[in-house]
């Protein structure tokens, strides 16, 4: 049985549990895990004050319960697999460098901010600033993959520098705001002002969208690289269709307020 933490008491204020990563807990005795520090608001507490610990510490970690009020779950993890059998709060997977973090429910705002590697999978929906920049930093996510099976809020991929964000549902306004590079694939509907102030990188839109006036149409074609990405996403369980893989995409270059080296690829619908 993998190491399992079960939330038995909802915190009255958000709980910060930055140490809940498989690589940090691997091999530790149960008593030591139970004594790990978590912060309930500004009050220092023990992990065991909120969680029941069972199983053995190995590369697999499972957390049961509604963690919607628990922040920084899986933040900074470098390896192993962490499964959250429910929702997770803000900053989930922030600064991840490796491993796989699977959230069976949804995640709060700022999930995957500053991520540098690994894979964050959200079976539900994500809040705002998915894969965005940590406070005070220009660059957002710098590597890795975020896959969201539900919807994503506003400013997903803001400041994205490298890596892949894919959302099966709808995406809020200003996706890819000020993005520097990297790839965002929106399989559902897209909000307003995608790619505003983007310098480089790619936003792929499968639904109709009106680019900002600072984007210019080039041509419609079949980008060879996109086949790799879409097949990759389909292999990971996202609902990518043959029409999307084989389709033609209109290429809009922008943002001309910046370098005009970015692109929005919009699937042509017949």
């Amino acid at each position, binding site marked *: 049985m993998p190491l399992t933490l079960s939330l038995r008491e909802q915190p009255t204020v958000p709980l910060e549990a930055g140490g809940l990563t498989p690589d940090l807990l691997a091999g530790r005795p149960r008593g030591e895990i139970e004594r790990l520090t978590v912060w309930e608001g500004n009050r220092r507490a023990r992990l065991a004050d909120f969680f029941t610990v069972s199983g053995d510490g190995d590369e697999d970690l499972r957390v049961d319960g509604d963690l919607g009020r628990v922040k920084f779950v899986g933040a900074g993890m470098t390896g192993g697999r962490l499964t959250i059998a429910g929702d997770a709060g803000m900053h989930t997977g922030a600064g991840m460098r490796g491993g796989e973090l699977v959230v069976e429910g949804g995640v709060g705002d700022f999930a995957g901010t500053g991520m540098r590697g690994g894979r964050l999978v959200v079976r539900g929906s994500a809040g705002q600033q998915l894969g965005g920049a940590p406070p005070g930093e220009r660059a957002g996510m710098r*590597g890795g993959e975020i896959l969201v099976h539900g919807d994503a809020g506003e400013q997903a991929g803001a400041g994205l520098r*490298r*890596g*892949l964000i894919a959302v099966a549902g709808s995406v809020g306004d200003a996706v890819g705001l000020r993005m520097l590079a990297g*790839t965002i694939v929106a399989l559902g509907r897209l909000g307003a002002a995608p790619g505003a102030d983007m310098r*480089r990188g*790619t936003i792929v839109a499968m639904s109709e969208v009106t680019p900002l006036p600072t984007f210019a149409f080039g041509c419609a*074609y*079949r*980008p*060879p*690289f996109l*086949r*790799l*990405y879409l*097949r*990759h996403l389909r292999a990971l369980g996202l609902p990518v269709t043959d029409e999307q*893989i084989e389709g033609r995409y209109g290429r809009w270059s922008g943002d001309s307020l910046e370098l005009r*080296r970015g692109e929005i690829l919009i699937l042509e619908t017949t």
Partner: protein
Amino acid sequence: MRLSDTEVVDTFAEAFPMWGARILITAESPAWAHEAARSLTGFATSVIGCKCEAGIERELDPSETPDGRPGASALLFANDREGLAKRLVERVGQSVLTCPTTACFNGLDAEETVDVGGQLRFFGDGYQASKVLDGRRYWRVPVMEGEFLVEERFAVAEGVAGGNIIILGRDVAEALRAAEEAAAAMRAVRDVIMPFPGGIARSGSKVGSRYSGLMASTNEALCPTLRSQAPHTDVPPEIGSVFEIVIDGLTLEAVREAMARGLEAAAGAGASQVTAGNYGGNLGPHHIELRGLVPGLRD
């Protein structure tokens, strides 16, 4: 030794190390993928005159390629890692980048890699862009047709070159028929190529020449027309024509397997004799004995 009615000389093929790479080419149609692979592997029969040896390994079904399009797999060999890197850049640049609708990927899993797409990207003159997926970097090079996609790094590994069988017949028709059957059977083996035209060479060579500066010259001991003229001959009296099939492979096992299939097919097609070329065992570390190569061989 005999295999069916074919005499098999109790000798060995002498093979030596050479660096190899596998190039996967995809395109909108099998025809264009094949066209690019044919161009990529053209004029690459022997390192002696072409700086590399190359051939099409096989056609690829869309389910086998990275982008799900029809493709072709080619192997390219050169004497050293640096030479192989140069040939890859030259040939992918001139033959695949230029070919309509193609993309080009590394098809080998090995630790050592060389930069290919990272060099070819400069053709984009600043408009190129890169994508990193699953730890592999790809370059998107804008071209007049649309976009050329090429993987940045290609794996290279030490392979085996110079595996061979030599097929002797009473006349050209008999020897060539046996050689064609042998080459066809060998093409079914993975990880190998036969770099000569149609897989068959009519001009097997020996090392050196009476003319200074020539690295190789005709192998007079196996030329039927010189049977009574050369100081030594290996051509039996009833033989009128000889062909050689050279095999380069990523592994010694694959080269051995190809030789075995070629030997069986040549014997089945009525070759008078099958032998193998070597340099007395002094040149290459791999000696592939014909004895024991196929189960039906008898003394």
